[in-house]
């Protein structure tokens, strides 16, 4: 299965995630193939298109759009090359989801065995108990204690953060980095669990007080 080109349907339109590592000449072949496969999915609807994952030159963007024009009946309302090279690869927190509709709010605590998985940011108004999981492509904000598992930027975005009033997760993941706070360590160093934010810094997950 080739994942260099991925289509995602969103409320506001179609998001096309492009691989940034392969040469453009290969990408365009994959792109054409994917467009052909997705032809019926597109139909003759009207939608906006957002390119993500790769910086495109104006010419490259035009070539990709030409393929869509030629092969499908899709009516493109506008093109958002909302790609900011920093947003996917750069570390540190400050990532703001470009789609303002893509945050969900959960009121109430997540108990063991309950999970929220969402392709955007998640705000939990309550606690996340051990055994509970929050997995988001964007940021995770917990207005309560995080004692379970949180995975921010699960699609690979290293700019995402996790914050909580009490940040004491069983396990914490941001993008492809996994960490945990060993119980013995927390006890020995008398770690006080205060409102904190966790983000990636220097290839590691870094926790800083939030005030």
């Amino acid at each position, binding site marked *: 299965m080739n994942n260099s080109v991925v289509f995602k349907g969103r409320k506001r339109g179609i998001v096309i995630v492009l691989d940034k590592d392969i040469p453009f000449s290969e990408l365009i072949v994959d792109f054409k193939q994917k467009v052909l496969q997705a032809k019926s999915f597109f139909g003759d609807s009207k939608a906006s298109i957002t390119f993500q994952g790769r910086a495109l030159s104006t010419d490259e963007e035009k070539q990709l759009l030409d393929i869509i024009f030629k092969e499908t009946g899709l009516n493109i309302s506008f093109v958002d090359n909302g790609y900011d090279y920093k947003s996917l690869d750069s570390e540190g927190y400050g990532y703001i989801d470009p789609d303002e509709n893509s945050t969900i709010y959960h009121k109430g605590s997540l108990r063991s*065995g*309950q999970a929220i998985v969402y392709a955007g940011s998640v705000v939990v108004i309550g606690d996340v108990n*051990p055994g509970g*999981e929050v997995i988001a492509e964007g940021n995770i904000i917990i207005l309560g204690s995080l004692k379970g598992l949180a995975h921010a930027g699960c699609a690979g975005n290293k700019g995402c953060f996790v914050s909580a009033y009490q940040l004491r997760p069983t*396990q914490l993941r941001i993008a492809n980095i996994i960490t945990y*706070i*060993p119980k013995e360590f927390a006890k020995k160093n008398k770690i006080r669990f205060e409102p904190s934010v966790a983000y990636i810094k220097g290839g590691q997950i870094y926790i800083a007080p939030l005030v």
Partner: protein
Amino acid sequence: MGEVIVITSGKGGVGKTTASANIGTGLAMLGKSVVMIDADIGLRNLDVVLGLENRIVYDLIDVIEGNCRIKQAFIKDKRYSNLFLLPAAQTKDKTAVSPEQMLKLCNSLREEYDFIIIDCPAGIEQGFNNATAGADRAIVVTTPEVSAVRDADRIIGLLESKDLKNPTLILNRIRQDMVKRGDMMAIEDVTEILAIDILGVVPEDEAIVISSNKGEPAVTDDSSRAGKAFRNITKRITGEEVPIMDLSADRGLLSKMKKLLRFGS
């Protein structure tokens, strides 16, 4: 060729998970290569008792659905490098796995490890069917209570109908002082009802609660009586003959003091 052992009970709370953790660790202490599988999907505990919950990335369901290779889901124990845990998923339920898939999994592990210990969930429904599907032999855990013994009897019947003949018994949480007063069933009372071979008797021991909370199985604790009972059980599993320990032996400072006083008077 390894052996797949399922640890089951019917009734909940009798000590299946504790027994699994201690037997698995005990076998690893004897130098065997051991995989422990938590089959209690949705109510996983074995990872907590072993103190490994914060290391879970992939679980049993990921393995079965092919999201990862088996070895990626294995969590190596903190103390013994020949001991591995395959954790259950917490956000799924028992129907996420079928007995055929468990059988396949057990058969692939059997080739590489000496022992595969399966922690069975309580109940007699799908979770039980999954856990027992790949097993070569079964260990039934019970406590000396009428209700637990009744459920153990039901489980033994079900195991026999699944061709898991000759299950063995662990009698857990026995209190010799209560047995003496006639307030608790004695070992003989239980074996008379269940009529299966006894694998071990584990005395009630505070060390179990402490060790479960700390995530370190009691079997590693030389001073714990329950730990000693589990060390004996693991030796019996490997074929060594060890006599059932004498439960009336003195325990604790208090009983020693009492004895001294009695001697003095």
